């Protein structure tokens, strides 16, 4: 039976996160549906990573509710996590373990049966058959990224969280990753990704949220966001080629100051 499309797979309601006196996320709310790629865009320090960390269960929010596949992460954290796949910016595996051993480790902790044919099939899908017994630390950056995505998807999660997944990838690898994301969307998975790349957001995201200073400034499809903000004087000022782009809207809404 296919995944039911357009059903909320992630619901974030009034999420607030502080670090001491500093409020990083201020009452943020959004929904990611099945069969949707949702992009969270914002400059450095806008609150993207904090929001993502709270969804991953790595950070305890001050207030708000996060529901993943009908499981409140406070009440049923393990059930919620069982339905989420996560790909971090840093790959995060023991460099001493081989690719096959990493696959077995994560298959075990996600309760996925993984015999040799299944492992081979997975290795073939990420085109790492020849590197099966290579240690993770010996792989190239692109190969490590592929292992990371395979592990994020090893349990077929309904929701996939990708934290700046194409950072550092060459154009070929980036395109390949976009195709994989689109493929997941077609199968009905929900994808939440953070990115600094407006090109990426426009190319793959069905909806995006622009976040800054812990607040969502705009949330809609990329086209609608451009349309709704095209007459904003700050956006027009940010425009460089006459035609308003998503980047112009982003700069117009978040300012030109460089963030640390």
């Amino acid at each position: 039976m296919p995944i039911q499309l357009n059903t909320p797979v992630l619901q974030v309601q009034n999420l607030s996160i502080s670090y001491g006196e500093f409020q990083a996320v201020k009452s943020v709310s959004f929904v990611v549906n099945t069969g949707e790629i949702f992009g969270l865009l914002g400059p450095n320090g806008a609150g993207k990573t904090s929001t993502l960390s709270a969804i991953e269960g790595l950070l305890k929010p001050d207030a708000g509710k996060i529901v993943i596949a009908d499981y409140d992460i406070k009440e049923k954290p393990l059930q919620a996590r069982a339905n989420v796949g996560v790909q971090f910016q840093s790959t995060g595996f023991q460099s001493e373990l081989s690719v096959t051993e990493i696959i077995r480790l994560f298959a075990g902790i996600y309760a996925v049966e993984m015999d040799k044919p299944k492992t081979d099939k997975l290795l073939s899908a990420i085109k790492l058959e020849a590197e099966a017994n290579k240690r993770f630390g010996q792989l190239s950056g692109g190969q490590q990224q592929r292992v990371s995505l395979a592990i994020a998807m090893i349990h077929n999660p309904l929701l996939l969280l990708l934290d700046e997944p194409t950072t550092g990838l060459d154009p070929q690898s980036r395109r390949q990753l976009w195709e994989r994301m689109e493929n997941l969307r077609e199968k009905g998975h929900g994808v939440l990704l953070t990115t600094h790349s407006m090109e990426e957001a426009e190319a793959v995201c069905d909806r995006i949220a622009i976040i800054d200073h812990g607040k969502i400034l705009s949330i809609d499809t990329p086209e609608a966001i451009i349309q709704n903000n095209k007459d904003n004087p700050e956006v027009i000022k940010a425009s460089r080629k006459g035609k308003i782009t998503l980047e112009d809207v982003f700069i117009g809404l978040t300012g030109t100051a460089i963030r640390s």
Partner: protein
Amino acid sequence: MCLLGSPGLQFAHKNSTMENKIPSTNSAISTLLQADFRTQWRNRRAVIMIIIVPVFILISWKGLVEKYGGAFALSNAITIGLTAIGLMGYSNAIARDRDKGVFQRLRVAPVPAWTIMMSRLAVQLTLIMITTTAVFVAGFYYDKISLDMSGYILGLLAAFAGGAMYLGLGQAIAGMINNAETVNSTTRLVYFFFIMIGMFGGLGVLGKEIGELVKWSPYGTVAHILASSMKPSTWDMESTMSLLLTAGYATIFSSMGIKWFKWSSAR
């Protein structure tokens, strides 16, 4: 299972029959243990250093065995091994994995966080057992040190108690310091300090006052309970005090380590 999609996967509502599963705690621990033992095994050079240094010191101390007794030599050699496990092995491993994001990757999986640390500690306890056994064997074959069976068993138990204290100290250092390289250099310094002051202070080479300080230091108390456990007939009030102090140090260091430990150095 399919990387690029999920034919047959149903939306994981609570009533769904195809919901993603949560592993049993036993299964999760078993999987983590396999990976952690494998990782430790791949770091053989570090393991060999942890085992070889105390054995080498024991063998080179042959002359002192007659002067101070076999239990004294064994206890000091094991204490050096325990110091290396807690300070050089464990703390550096957790600081390095934290830096790489290994813990964060495991924590987003549907396993309780305590299973991740328990697996790590189980590997270290095994290492304590192997080091202690290696020292006993080396003592028997090279220095002809023979203990009663109760001495070996109680000695091993005392090694676990002392090891817990040093693992706690390693955890505290990794808790206080976020950067893996700083943890590495700090633990090396503390290790060197403990070994030099502990060993020579315990022998009385550094004077009476330092000797007294060393006796009640983490190094001295662990060495003392080890020596007394290996010869149970010599267990006295001072041994009990050393045991209590070891437990106290272990509690303080572990509490500091747990309180200050951050799973990630990045966020």
